[in-house]
């Protein structure tokens, strides 16, 4: 079906977007981690000055620039380009 083909296309490892996460501002709430439909974000190991193991952009190659992570982040840590 058409839609399947379309879906197939977007799965292709061609990022159509890019995000930046503010390391110091992140509180490691993981909301973006669960929100990202592509699973691009993960919690890291480094602890920031607030004491949190901030999230990081783990899989840039899958990012579509849909901005769902950014919309979701309560701390406005994520900026998105497409």
């Amino acid at each position: 079906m058409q839609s399947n083909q379309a879906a197939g296309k977007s799965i292709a490892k061609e990022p159509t977007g890019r995000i930046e996460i503010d390391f110091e501002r992140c509180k490691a709430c993981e909301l973006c981690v669960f929100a990202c439909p592509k699973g691009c974000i993960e919690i890291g190991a480094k602890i920031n000055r607030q004491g949190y193991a901030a999230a990081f952009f783990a899989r840039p190659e899958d990012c579509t620039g849909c901005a769902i992570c950014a919309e979701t982040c309560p701390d406005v840590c994520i900026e998105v380009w497409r």
Partner: protein
Amino acid sequence: MTTDVVMAGFGGQGILMIGNLLSLAAMEEGKHVTYFPAYGVEMRGGTANCTVVISDEEIGSPVVGSPKACVIMNGPSLEKYLPDLRRGGILVINSSLVEPSNVDRDDVRLLSIPANDIARQVLGSQQLASMVALGAYVALAGVVSMDTLFECLPKVISRKYEKFIPLNVNALKEGESFARNHA
């Protein structure tokens, strides 16, 4: 004899629990003691700290301007409390999270203990870092006996976590021996 200590770190590091434990032990040993926590700043996060004063006499102020000891579990707390520490006072820092080179005073008795690392590597849980630090502090200051601390553990650990008491004993001991070896 009167002594006092300020303990500080991130919320969730167990600062208030070790302050409580120390106070209980002091009471158990018949001493006068006061424990004063930093109480809810009407929001979460940030730092937690408490002051414990232990004495043979009636205690006046439960809060002190220049403490005789500090147990510092994270970076921001070092900035906040180091300036107040009395000359010659005891400073225990958790070097897993606090950079020892940030200690810009040489008139204090510094012990750098990688509490988180010890807790994780030796005991299997970072949760125990503050117990490690308390063990170290008590070893240095000698305000109460280690055994009294052990005895009092069941009073600060809820029934639900009873099974972790031996682990906490070990944590205190780890801290103690680290202090004895590095002081």
